[in-house]
């Protein structure tokens, strides 16, 4: 009975022979930890970059998106729970796609980047690393869409091949993390600092859930932490909650709650704060923080008007807008 201790994420699962980690897909077989979903994604799509959401990273470009089963968090409101809360052996749809095949398909589809997303790419770490390394070599960019519940060492190694990340910061409250996700807050904050230190383009998403994390004092605390630790230019997306999975008892987030949250975060010093999952809202567009010029107008995931210059400047005042624009 050779058990192993997984060092990938803060859970530190001690896994007996024949068992899986909390993520369900890293399995101890014969005393060795095995990545059972390597090269076996269950979701492959071409998405607009805005869907990730990444608004300051190659806007309007298609991104080849993939995910395997499993996740190391268990959010009660997970929107991909059919994928994330299952082990590989429980999945019906499994594609066979080695890293090189992913690259070929992405290029055929006209994508300039690959997103590791939907569930949480932390749990298919090796697949993400190998595909990202190949992608880099062929001139493609890599983006990580994650809750960032990962230990510092593996994250720093992964950062060497990452170009951008959107991290889902659930709340600035450890108790809520434990209650809703089964994880804890501090490792996520540490991971955010590391992503910033390693020079990965970073955007944050905060899903605003009525009665759970819509308190304006907490939102201000979160915005201040972001401003102080990551910088005022870090884009923050307030996303609208829709009842699903095990959290159907709460209503969708009212538009005014998102507007208050955005105003609070901008008042705390953040310069690029967005409202997402709310079709047609003005807060979904990018404005120049100096003179208010609309730079990228969006409806849903689609860009309807772009005035930002090719090198990422405001056409009116020449203010440089932070991001990766080409």
């Amino acid at each position, binding site marked *: 009975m050779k*058990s192993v201790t*997984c060092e*990938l994420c803060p859970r530190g699962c*001690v896994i007996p022979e024949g068992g899986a980690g909390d993520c369900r897909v890293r399995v101890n077989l014969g005393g060795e*930890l*095995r*990545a059972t979903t390597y090269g076996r994604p269950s979701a492959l799509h071409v998405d607009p970059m805005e869907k990730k959401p990444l608004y300051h990273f190659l806007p309007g470009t298609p991104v080849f998106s993939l995910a395997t089963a499993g996740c190391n968090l268990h959010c009660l409101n997970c929107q991909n729970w059919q994928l994330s809360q299952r*082990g590989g052996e429980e999945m019906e749809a499994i594609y066979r796609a080695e890293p090189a095949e992913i690259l070929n398909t992405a290029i055929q589809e006209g994508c300039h980047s690959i997103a590791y997303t939907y569930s949480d790419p932390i749990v298919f770490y090796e697949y993400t690393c190998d595909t990202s390394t190949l992608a880099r070599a062929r001139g493609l960019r890599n983006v990580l869409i994650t809750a960032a519940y990962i230990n510092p060492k593996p994250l720093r190694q992964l950062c060497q091949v990452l170009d951008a990340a959107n991290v889902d910061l659930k709340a600035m409250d450890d108790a809520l993390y434990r209650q809703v996700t089964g994880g804890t807050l501090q490792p996520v904050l540490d991971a955010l600092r590391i992503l910033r230190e390693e020079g990965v383009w970073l955007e944050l998403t905060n899903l605003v859930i009525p009665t759970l994390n819509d308190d304006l004092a907490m939102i201000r605390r979160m915005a201040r932490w972001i401003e102080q630790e990551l910088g005022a230019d870090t884009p923050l997306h307030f996303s609208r909650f829709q009842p699903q999975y095990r959290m159907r008892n709460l209503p969708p987030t009212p538009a005014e709650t998102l507007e208050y949250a955005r105003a609070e975060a901008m008042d705390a010093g953040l310069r690029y704060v967005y409202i997402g999952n709310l079709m047609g809202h003005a807060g979904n567009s990018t404005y120049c923080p100096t003179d208010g010029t609309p730079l990228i107008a969006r409806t849903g995931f689609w860009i309807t008007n772009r005035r930002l210059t090719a090198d990422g400047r405001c056409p009116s005042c020449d203010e440089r807008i932070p991001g990766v624009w080409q």
Partner: protein
Amino acid sequence: MQGAPPILGREREAWCATGVRFIRVPSMQTSARWVRMPVNWRTRDLPLPALILLCLTLIGLHLRLVSKEAADAGTGGWRHIDRAALERRIESGDLRDVRADWYHPTRPDEGPFDQGSFGTSE
């Protein structure tokens, strides 16, 4: 007037017939709503507090066990899986057994379970 009840009798224990609260009432104030306590109520009702005490003890033990399990899960959790199904999917090529990064053989000071007594879910 022999045999008639006193105007102000001794106070005594009584139950409200619709509730469980003990009150003290003058013995004369009895009606259909008040039930006089039997003489031997103390011995007869001893099982009730004993039962309450037992329930509280069991609840306490249960909570202690649950919190210990939760603490274990947070610092070294793992999951049973359908290993036979996993191996079938690996053999068919639907899944892989690529060696993972970032792990080490468990040290003796790690692990919430007794490795010697562990059995898989099969």
